[in-house]
């Protein structure tokens, strides 16, 4: 168990916590919370994968500011690609959340509760 893999473990723990919420909880809102946690976990994992430690100090964002030379940036900045992927992934997570909340309030409308134990097909 070295430090260099510990952050990955945290990301997977988060993923598992989200899965646990979805499998074990019988409440639509709790399930949505689980979904949010899973989103966090995947985004966290991606950013961890792209991180590059900068020996000279704080990690360098891949943005070319006035006092930086492009070569300097290329040698020290963190990986910009996972950031682009996470941007997309956050948006997808938000979209799914919007849709699932719409379904949850519609189901509340039908049953008067968020409890899946009272719903016919979601019990199992």
């Amino acid at each position, binding site marked *: 168990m070295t430090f260099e893999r510990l952050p990955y473990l945290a990301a997977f723990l988060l*993923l598992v916590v989200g*899965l646990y919420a*979805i499998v074990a909880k019988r409440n*639509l809102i709790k*399930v949505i919370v689980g*979904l949010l946690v*899973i*989103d966090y*976990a*995947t985004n966290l*994992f*991606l950013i961890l*994968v792209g991180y590059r430690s900068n020996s000279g100090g704080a990690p360098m964002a891949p943005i070319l500011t006035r006092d930086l030379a492009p070569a300097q940036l290329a040698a020290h900045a963190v990986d910009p*690609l*996972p950031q682009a*992927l996470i941007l*997309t*992934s956050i948006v*997808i997570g938000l*979209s*799914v959340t919007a*849709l*699932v909340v719409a*379904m*949850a309030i*519609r*189901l509340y409308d*039908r*049953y008067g509760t968020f409890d899946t134990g009272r*719903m*016919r*097909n*979601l019990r*199992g």
Partner: protein
Amino acid sequence: MRNLLPLFVAIPLAGGFLMPVVGRLLGPRRRACALIPILLAAGVLALAVRLVLLPDAQTPPYWMGAWDFPVGISLVADGLSKFIVLIVAVVSLAALLFSTDYMTRYTSPGLYYGLFLLMLAGMNGVVLAGDLFNVFVFLEVAGIASYALVAFGTEADELEASFKYLILGSIASAFVLVAVAILYSVTGHLNLAKIAEVLRAGGGLTVPIYLAAAFLLMGFALKAALVPFHAWLPDAHPSAPAPISAMLSGVLIKACGVYVLVRLVFSVFAGLEAFGVVLVVLGTLSMVAGAILAIGQGDLKRLLAYSSISQVGYVVTAIGTGLVLLAWAPGKPALQALAVLAIFGGLFHLANHAVFKSLLFLLSGSIEYATGTRQLKSLGGLGRSMPLTAWSLRIAALSISGVPPFAGFFSKFIILLVLVQAAVLGHGAFWLVAVLALAVAVLTLVYYAKVQRAVLGGAPTAATADAREVPFSMAVATAALAVLCLAGALVLHPAVKRRIVDPAVAVLVARGLPRSEGSLLQGLPQTEQPEVAAARALEHPNPTLDASDAEVIP
């Protein structure tokens, strides 16, 4: 000429963005809404036909934004993706045609057609993507559109089914994304072909790669509804409006599930035997469980949904068998010819299933439209009152149960033949698979006979007494698919086969072979590209399958 590939995504996307506005402008004229989507789908179909007819050399990978290899995203159309794109285009045109009249029962047609076209764009995007993350993005496009469409009727059952589908689908997507991250960390690439190359060059798969592969398998097996991961399908597919059920069962689980699964296993993970075994096991499980669960169903659409699980099981079993045989093939031409046949059988069955299962779901929609019910016990006597629907139903049911002159017979027969041969020439364990496949074929025959008798035979019931034939557009859509069902056996004709199916088979055979053994394709010259060699091998299939090669198989 310009490269056609971006249009496959751009055309349905433009329609999808436009339709919600058009729907509002047209207001209550619901039929008129269908015009634009039908025209666009016909355009996509025309493009797909053009794409299939073009030789591979004229459809090079298309680099988005003119960026070249390491930084850009590519669209790739090889034999396999062309084949799937064609199937998707055919089924979606039929489903849209059917929707014209069927969807007058539902409100907000603008939203419906918008979601439909966006789902189509998502599927085309997945099938043509040459970049792993891009596959994920378009998978989500198609997936989210299908979640919303399943709930389109906004009844409690439909919402619940859709909720379950959404949750399981999102979990699958999360696993896929984690696998993408692992593969990026390990290989430094997202381009599918490049990942494959790096993995091959790295010599043997390592534990992290297997982990990524397991996540991807899990994610896409869930999208394909293979058995341990099938829980959402029997709820989601029956809940959707009939044309959407036809799209989901007919093409979505294939384009977003089976296709990606096969592509990853064959191309990216370089066709390892172990993956083939996993596919065979999952496929056999789905085949058996789907058929057993289908028998007891009283709801027509639910029965069809379980039947989809079972039939997709056939497809996956056949392709997995092909992969296993390819892994054993070096030095044994008989096994290689058998592997080619297995993959051909699997893809042929995939196409057949797309046609007859979407037809069956559309027909279930016709029946529900005419009678208001889809419970088998309250149906009956429709043979006389709805002749066209009845004949289409007979054709589809006979084809899916594998009765001789129909296409379904040939694909199932090829698969069974391959399984038996694999048991004889390869490993004895295939006997079990072959016997189960035969038993499932018999079961399928039984429950479709039950469906035909319940729906068509007997005296008209209270629900069906005043049933009339369905409106024009629905009749046209179902009749067209029924004709396709009848004509399906034509695929076996060499002229058609060479154009449509063989390139797809060639892609898989070439990729599935262990790379260093590429030149072992029946003594072909070393300089030939594996794809060309495989295509050559297809034209001269080796019919001398006998037991003489059997003893050396591990």
